């Protein structure tokens, strides 16, 4: 125990085996179910404040297992970006793809597609996170358990 109340849904606490159902944001089915509802859920470490998506059982920065779940803001900034000339076959129809690492206003960082040409964005461009269903072609690439998982896409703000 680290002095925090255990068992309170609002408080950071260690996940217990029985918590880890397909509805829990600490599992990918639960994380993507929330994303389908428009909510990007992240974890925040109660010890060192490190934030991350998706939520996971321990903080990668300090190792603490006291992790709170927080809904993430949609607004962020491009840290770096590139253009994928020849993506994997499943995405060939959309080539070239613009891809970026984005830091959300919460400090969370994630990689994703950008719905803009490479020349239209750069390091520092503000973007907003959107969520959409997979296209039929993307579903062909998806594993059975991934077919209903939505895709996050950034748009220039």
């Amino acid at each position, binding site marked *: 125990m680290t002095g925090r109340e255990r068992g309170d849904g609002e408080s950071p606490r260690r996940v217990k085996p029985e918590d880890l159902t397909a509805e829990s944001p600490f599992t990918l089915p639960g994380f993507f179910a929330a994303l389908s509802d428009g909510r990007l859920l992240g974890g925040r470490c109660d010890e060192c404040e490190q934030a991350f*998506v998706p939520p996971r059982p321990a903080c990668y920065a300090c190792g603490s297992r006291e992790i709170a779940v927080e809904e993430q803001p949609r607004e962020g900034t491009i*840290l770096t970006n*590139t253009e994928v000339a020849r993506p*994997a076959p499943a995405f060939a129809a959309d080539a070239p*793809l613009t*891809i970026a690492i984005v830091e959300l206003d919460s400090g969370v960082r994630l990689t994703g597609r950008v719905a803009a040409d490479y020349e239209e964005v750069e390091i520092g461009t503000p973007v907003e996170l959107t969520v959409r269903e997979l296209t039929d072609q993307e579903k062909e690439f*998806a594993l059975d358990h991934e077919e209903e998982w939505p895709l996050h896409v950034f748009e220039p703000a």
Partner: protein
Amino acid sequence: MPDPVILSVGASPVGDSELTGRDLFSVALAEAFENLPDPAGIVDALYVGNQSESYEHQIMYGTLLAEWAGLRHVPAERVEGCAAAGALALRHAVRDVRSGQCDVVLACGVEKMTAGGTAGATEALSAAFDRALEQRSGITAPSQYALLAERYCHETGATEEELARVAVKNHSNAARNPRAQYQSEIDAETVLESPYVARPLKLFDCAPVSDGAAAVVIASEEVAATLVDSEETVRASGVGAGSNNLAVAERDLTFVEGAHRAARGAYEEAGVEASEIDVAEVHDAFTVCEPLLAEAVGFAPRRAGVECALEPGERSDGWSDVELSTSGGLKARGHPIGATGLYQAIEAYEQLTGRAGDRQVEGAKRALCVNEGGVADAVTVAHVLEAT
């Protein structure tokens, strides 16, 4: 504790081969044991670095290669860690000998990347990215490194031309390496005029798709002395390993911390400083990797890593005099993923035993090999090797 040494090495040529993975291993084995007893008489364990079963639809490479070497009676296993699999296999061998559990261990690596063409390699390598957010966004290996390169150039002021010079240097080294895939020099214009694969990286910023197998025999110094002259051995005096987040977005984008931790571990175990390293094989899968690694392992001051393409005497204050990627590196020697860490150790072995021919660095006494897997430093293994 027994001191582990490299007893012998062997490798297939690197390139687009008609041979399959097991055949390439046979080439490596034949060279490594040319002047040794049968493996069955001396080898106590076998480890195989191998990235992906998707190329040849073959797992169980530990069992297969043990059989091929006449070693069915010893424990054998495939080691997975994408492009770091080879050095992970070597690390297991070194530790088995140092612990006293084994006298002689065979570390090898094998990859038959050309089997599925460029599309097959793209697909197989993408399995090393985080499935949840990265793979599903359609990203490829070159574009992962392009994200790092774009940020590195933004923060340090490094240019595409400076990155191109890393490729020029490594091709120049490979031109003097009979094991290399590209034994020819190129100029900066060739790199700069090649098509973008993922901006700012162009075709000639990227390591090729390669077939190859390599074998490194690790033995205790005591047992090695009964088999070869001591000048033919190289001490495996330090090994370090470290991981970083699987998803690139969550890491420090301009400092490869995992590699920093791995190198520090190797230096500490060997009792050496970065400044004492004479030659180093670093994981230049893409040109930007060499500057990033030069900074992370302590050869270069922060933001000055891109001077790795210059001669030691031309670099800024704070740079060591290390010679980098004398084999030609992944860029030009070639990059058969699961075997690459062993090819690095073989270059170090040849430099430290004075067998590096036209690319010999005079007086080389200490080498560092840095082998990364996943994108950049998702996992890194570093070895310090020293002349006896």
